């Protein structure tokens, strides 16, 4: 395994996240009126137990974080992450108004951009054609219900 991929400040951040999640589960578990029944434990028991487990794991992370020294963090290309997340969000918001084909073509082009392919004028048409074919195959042949926009309505339902 690549040791470089284990920065240490991360251990404390993860510990914090795990503790927060654990506390949330315990709080939610306690909020459930527990009527145990024959079993003696009810719906609230599992959240409390798993929440407790998460807090123990958070403590383990603090412990390992204190014991080992910080390792160099490999440089991450945050712009690429941004492109993919943008693509996903564009698809999410444009799916209903513009339909599957256009929204997915934008995701396609953004992902290609994230992978270092800069020619948007090529990526976008390729994405459009692919998404359009995928729509036809899945909505038409495989009976999946994909949101239609004006492109789909115009061509497939013409």
């Amino acid at each position, binding site marked *: 395994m690549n040791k470089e*991929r284990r920065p240490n400040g991360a251990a404390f951040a993860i510990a914090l996240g795990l503790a927060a999640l654990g506390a949330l589960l315990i709080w939610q578990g306690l909020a459930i009126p527990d009527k145990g029944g024959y079993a003696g434990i009810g719906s609230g028991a599992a959240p409390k137990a798993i929440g407790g*487990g998460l807090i123990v794991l958070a403590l383990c992370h603090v412990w390992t974080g204190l014991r080992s020294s910080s390792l160099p963090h490999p440089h991450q290309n945050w712009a690429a992450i941004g*492109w993919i997340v943008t693509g996903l969000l564009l698809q999410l918001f444009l799916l209903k108004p513009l339909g599957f084909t256009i929204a997915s073509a934008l995701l396609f082009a953004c992902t290609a951009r994230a*992978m270092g392919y800069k020619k948007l004028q090529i990526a976008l048409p390729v994405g459009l054609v692919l998404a359009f074919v995928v729509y036809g195959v899945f909505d038409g042949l495989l009976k999946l219900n994909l949101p239609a926009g004006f492109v789909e309505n115009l061509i497939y339902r013409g």
Partner: protein
Amino acid sequence: MEAFGFLLQGLATAMDPMLLLYALLGVTLGTMVGVLPGIGPALTVALLLPVTYGLDPAGSLIMFAGIYYGGMYGGSTTSISLNTPGESASIVTAIEGNKMALAGRGGPALATAAIGSFVAGLLATLALAFIAPSVVKLALIFGPREYFALMMLAFVTVSAAFGDSAMKGLTSLFIGLALALVGIDGLTGQTRLAFGMPQLLDGIEVTTLAVAMFAVGEALFVAARIEGADVKVHAIKGAVRMTATDWSRSWKAWLRGTAIGFPIGAMPAGGADIASFLSYGAEKRLTKYPAEFGHGAIEGVAGPEAANNAAAAGTLVPLLTLGLPTTATAAIMLAGFQQFGLQPGPLLFVTAPTLVWGLIASLLIANVMLLVLNLPLIRIWIKLLMIPRHWLYAGILLFATLGTIGVNPSPVELVQLTIFGLMGYGMRLLNYPIAPVVVGLILGPMAEQQLRRALSIARGDWTTLVATPLSAGLLAVAALALIVPMLMRARGRGAVLSQVAADED
């Protein structure tokens, strides 16, 4: 020999032309997607699950089984032809297979992988057919406490027993268990952790989580690595066939690999990774040509490839007979069953015998189809490796979102895809295993229900959990599987365990 009769009936079912077509479609798609670099069997089945939504249960499950086997075959092609394996179970194949390809012996390497996968798949599927009825009978004496103990064992083997840190594995598992709590409690109808959002009442979909963590997470991880130039594909020189020496060196390795792989897959003892790793170790010890190991020994490809496919078939034993998924791939397969309201387990063998035996028989058929697809057509599959990375991942993300949109085009679902994708990226970056999250999500509620049922029957007496030798024994094995590796790591012998890290499957 009742299994034999059932199997013949199953073959009669599976020979239906329409079902044969679905099987062929499944193996073709499975191989195609499985070959793509960076896509393992778990992601292959998760991505292709939507393809089967519109079909009837029999057609859909048979296609799905074909996808599963096809994905396993496809991965070996990738690991021999590229230096980055397509699936973790093929990492050991990559050690020798890649060396063979570099030395111009890629043809024999691919041939021994394909034929070995065929032999192992055939034997292991037959073993599945013959063992299944006995396990079903055994399952009938299983009560809630035995199921609970079995699930504890599955939790430990998938999260803490292998890999480089028990803490990381358990963290992944507990994240999965926490996500599993979202929605309505199956026993009391109590809503938990939905925070007033009606979309969360049904809980978090296994397929959404799996696709997000494996596909979106992987795409983010690859995109964020700056240096990553496109990996080089080794041209396959020579015919995809083996010489007499290759055959004589391969066949024993195939059989040994099958013998190692099937039991490991069948018991909740980790997935195909562990099987192929152990097989590689066995071949290295038994070989007559120790000097060749590390430089392209054919046994090092034949054994692990057979083991990996045998384990894939073995995983179906607990899945079909007990309804117990022990790997991420099996967890997604279970989700595939559940979309038709089918719950695998002993009851399914009684209520839907044609379906179950048709499925098992179609695995045999899929295996034959795969041999035909893989030997003569291998060059076509290798062409797929040449797809540039940007088109590949753009396409993967399109398909990843397609599945989610097709099932439930709600913004909540797509937001989950993005959030879990980012989580999967972070976990990859920091070396946390992904599979335990997926297994925790699907097994968590099942384990909770069995525990509460067991306690209800015993009126709250916790000692009931260890009251039968079987449940006590299973829990003891689970405890050992947790503690022994921890001690091994503490004594600096953890390197062996990290090598077997179950990454994807």
